[in-house]
């Protein structure tokens, strides 16, 4: 069946995949790449409306050829990088065409669609374009010509750790390039592209030293490496330890090799992370879990030494084997503890990923609800609190406090003033969630003195 028709890049058709309940589904997918291995063809598919991390190589028998749609003619996408065959089909485009039946020009449709979707919140639309937003924030003072307004492809901005737009998106980075990573006890399936040395991308398994994160092409090499590598913990200072959980601080300038290896690994699981520039302006906080073999990396977050935009986290990641066990929240909590010591409020660098958003919202909700529920009425007066106070106590940036209150639907207008109302299900839900939350950061175990990086010259 697949042999008769030529399934090329850009075609759309339903592709069989198993869902979490292990049931068959046939979501619509787009063919991003075709490769021929001896005996058969393989197709790299992106499931429309699913995150890229689920993209995969599929065999022809999983394609539903009866519903094949050929790419629309309008695909006059400018090849950004001059790479032949590079077809930067941005998610934007996919979203648009997925929801529009006719093949209209995409730009206007995006707006219409979004407007329809968000019910006239044009302002929100604007704000949710991080690239624009950033520029707008900086205002007229920003003469940083990193954003190529003149059409010349320029280097991306040098602050931050995430790509603010998809202008550097191309077919190479759209596709996962590593099949499998072995790290300590774990075998990880990467979610996204990562710029490991190209000759290593063809390997079935990429081996990483669990402690220094060096990449090796074979188990034999790893064995040899382990005779020489005597690290049993991340190469930095331990600034927190409680129970088996430790945090190590690593300077991206002083320990480049480790920082780079960490970034390469993290890139496998962070879509928007950029490795364009060196790691010098970042600190890396690596969370480990101790056992008799050593301090095993669980997750990490990076942080700009100096942030002009109140970011207290650049990239944050819990490694997949440790996900959904509360470590992510622990990382977030730790990042706010650091901000508390610094006496600042902070916010994670944008854009957030889907998992990032859920984690942060969850953390913010629990943190704020914890405060609200703990407030006791004094002298029979109804307890009250300002948003600024919440922000100061938690180090969560004011905007994040407001968005959380909105998201939880706590803010109401009652009798001429704003009030916060805690509904039954919110309270119940919070209490249930807090019971499950065993892992907490103990501020007493934190041994951290913030450095004033601005006084140290360049980082």
């Amino acid at each position: 069946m697949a042999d008769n028709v030529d399934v090329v890049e850009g075609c759309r058709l339903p592709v069989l995949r198993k869902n979490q309940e292990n049931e068959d589904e046939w979501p619509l997918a787009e063919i991003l790449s075709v490769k021929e291995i001896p005996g058969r063809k393989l197709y790299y598919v992106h499931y429309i409306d699913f995150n890229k991390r689920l993209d995969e190589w599929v065999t022809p028998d999983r394609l539903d050829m009866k519903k094949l749609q050929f790419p629309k003619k309008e695909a006059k996408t400018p090849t950004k990088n001059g790479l032949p065959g590079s077809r930067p089909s941005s998610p934007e485009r996919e979203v648009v065409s997925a929801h529009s039946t006719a093949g209209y020009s995409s730009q206007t449709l995006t707006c219409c669609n979004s407007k329809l979707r968000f019910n006239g919140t044009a302002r929100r639309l604007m704000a949710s374009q991080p690239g624009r937003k950033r520029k707008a924030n900086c205002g007229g003072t920003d003469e940083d010509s990193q954003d190529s307004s003149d059409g010349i492809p320029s280097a991306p901005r040098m602050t931050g750790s995430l790509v603010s737009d998809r202008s550097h998106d191309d077919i190479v980075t759209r596709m996962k390039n590593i099949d499998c990573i072995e790290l300590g006890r774990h075998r990880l399936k990467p979610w996204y592209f990562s710029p490991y040395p190209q000759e290593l991308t063809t390997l079935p398994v990429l081996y990483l030293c669990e402690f220094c994160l060096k990449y090796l092409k074979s188990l034999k090499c790893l064995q040899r490496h382990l005779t020489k590598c005597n690290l049993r913990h991340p190469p930095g200072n331990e600034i927190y330890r409680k129970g088996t959980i430790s945090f190590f601080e690593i300077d991206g300038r002083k320990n480049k090799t480790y920082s780079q290896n960490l970034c390469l690994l993290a890139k496998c699981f962070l879509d928007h992370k950029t490795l364009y520039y060196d790691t010098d302006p970042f600190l890396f906080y690596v969370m480990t879990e101790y056992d008799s073999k050593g301090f095993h990396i669980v997750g990490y977050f990076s942080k700009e030494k100096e942030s002009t935009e109140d970011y207290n986290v650049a990239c944050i990641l819990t490694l997949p084997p440790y996900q959904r066990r509360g470590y992510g929240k622990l990382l977030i909590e730790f990042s706010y503890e650091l901000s508390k010591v610094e006496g600042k409020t902070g916010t994670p660098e944008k854009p957030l990923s889907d998992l990032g958003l859920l984690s942060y919202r969850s953390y913010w909700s629990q943190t704020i609800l914890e405060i609200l529920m703990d407030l006791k009425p004094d002298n029979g007066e109804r307890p009250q609190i300002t948003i600024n106070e919440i922000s100061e106590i938690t180090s969560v940036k004011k905007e994040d406090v407001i968005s959380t209150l909105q998201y939880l639907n706590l803010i109401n207008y009652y009798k001429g003033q704003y009030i916060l109302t805690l509904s039954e299900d919110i309270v119940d839900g919070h209490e249930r969630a807090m019971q499950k939350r065993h892992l907490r950061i103990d501020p007493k175990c934190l041994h951290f003195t913030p450095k004033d990086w601005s006084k140290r010259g360049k980082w």
Partner: protein
Amino acid sequence: MSKLSFRARALDAAKPLPIYRSRDLPDLKDCVSINRAVPQMPTGMEKEEELEHHLQRAISAQQVFREKKENMVIPVPEAESNITYYDRLYKGELKVPKQLIHIQPLGLDNEQPDYDMDSEDETLLNRLNRKMEIKPLQFETMVDRLEKASANQLVSLPEAKLLLNEDDYLLKSVYDYWVRKRKNCRGPSLIPQIKQEKRDGSTNNDAYVAFRRRTEKMQTRKNRKNDEASYEKMLKLRREFSRTVTILEMIKRREKSKRELLHLTLEVVEKRYLLGDFTGEVLNEVTVPLAEKPVYTAPVTLTNGNRHKAELKTKTGLMHQVSIKDEFPFDCVRPKKKYSKRDKLYTQRRPGRPPSQYTVNKADIKQYDFHSSGEEDYTPPLSPPSEPDEENDPDGLFAFRRKAGCQYLSPHMDQNLGVLWEHPELAGMDALRHRHSLTALSLPSRLVGLGRRRMGRGGRVILDRASSGLDVVLKQLDPDAFASPVSRTRDINRLVAQRASMSSGVSSATAASSFAEILNNIQSLRWHCFRPRPAQHQVNEGSRMGKPSLDGRVTSSLLLNTKNNGSGGLSFTAGADNQQLVGKTSEIFFTSAQCAKCTLTSYGLHSLLQCSSTGTSRPPHSATLSHSGAGISGRVSSSGIGGPLLPTHSSSSLQSLPNHRNHVSAVSPAHHHHSAQPSAPSPSALKLATVATTLDHVPKVTPASTISNLARENHEPERLLNGISETTMAMEVT
């Protein structure tokens, strides 16, 4: 829900918000939606991702259930944690220290090789281990060094030997293995590395290039322009400092070479003293064959300088071409000498290993210059370490290669040459062979213009021709007119060598006519031309010429040296019976001279006129002066300026010299009259000659006044002299 009849005030973050439980607010239904008053905060996600199915599902699940549902989470690719060989892989246990781990900022690097052996290497190692013991770490260190030294180009085997310092057999096996493995390697290095950026910007969009340096733009807070400017300045300063370091390195090298030269010279002198070699014979025997070399090796080592020289040549034209070729080791007149001498030293001292020297240098230069943005095009002119071809084979395509089955004879050292070398006192004579002289052929009786004879491979005689402005005139000359003298004169007689630039000074018809006139004179006075012929016949040369024959040779070399150009050179060879100098005419009488050097400082140009006459030690007979023994008598009478165009006028006092079969140095200046302009100033005779009492005495005369007189009287010669003074000029009279 009651209709909102007023505009809600904006949410004030500083205003206290009372907290209500829902049960406390039975009339909560009266609460109003605040959507309009409180701005919706962005989620912080990319909007298109925000719409993704699994996220939306998870968000709604949370909204509904207020907690996570197992089947509503966002699906991710699986991860396994069941590596069974983990314990075998990560050996040993770690006891948790009581204190927080504090890492020392230094001492992390324990100098372990970055290269990790793979199973293929292990096979080789097992094979090698049958013959000798080699540990994996040793092997890794070797490969690591090889890899790190081969950033641009593969390390060659000799370089590898220097690098590794291992047993030869082991080294060879590992090296060969490494070369093979590297060829098959898909990556740029056997140690996998993150792709580096290239400074030309070609990698700006390469997805595999990561961790670029942030040097393009300084990260200044709030865009402080002055910070950026000062940053740029610091970068520049840094660059310049590193250049200084490079220069100083080079100076250091040069001075070391100098010192070495000094020591070597000292040693040579000591050795000579011990040997009793006071006449320099032994030294000459030893040095002559060596002296041959540098003339040809010089272009090899000084690739850059040589290119520069080539440019110069085209500028100065013929003058330069005719210039120095005689690198007689003890003739230290020309500054150019210095270079070749150094090269000589260099090549002699380290015959086989110039590449390694360069390796070091390049590394040094690089080392001091890592931060130079935009300096990529400034690559040090040294050749990269692993290009032995270029080093050893300067002729490249045209290199001489021995052919199998061919017999190669050693070059003919004909007696002419032999004589010269055996008699160092004939230093100047050696140079004669390299001068361009007016040449005629006897068999197709033809005048070929300026030429010089060379001995080619297998004793072939090669005639190098040079073009000059005189060619036009020369063509008109009748070769028959001097055919007989040519045939008769077997000796090497040098005539006029004219510089191109000079004749360009002589412009238009008048010039031509003047020259014609001169040449007529030449003809009438019999013109002896150089003619290639075996030298052994020269002995019996009778002078059947009407003129005093010149059997012997007198070389008088006139050297005009200015500071304008130290390296250029021009040789004039004047015929015995007419000396035609462009700037002035000199009659030079040298009776017997070992070496007479007259140094003139001419008008403000600091020109150096050097006349050297070389002859045999036999006391010649001279009409003017006759000093037996060691006496030298030289009289140079410069007769002044003839005309504006051809400022030569020689009042000649003709000397008839007795015919000597052996080399008698004599100059017999011919009497000729170039009074093209009757208004020519009367020749102010210049007596240059001084008497040297000893053979090696060098008289110095500074006839500045005379020459400056001339200069004032006539502008033309000044111009011409200026022309001359552009180069160093050696004039020789035979």
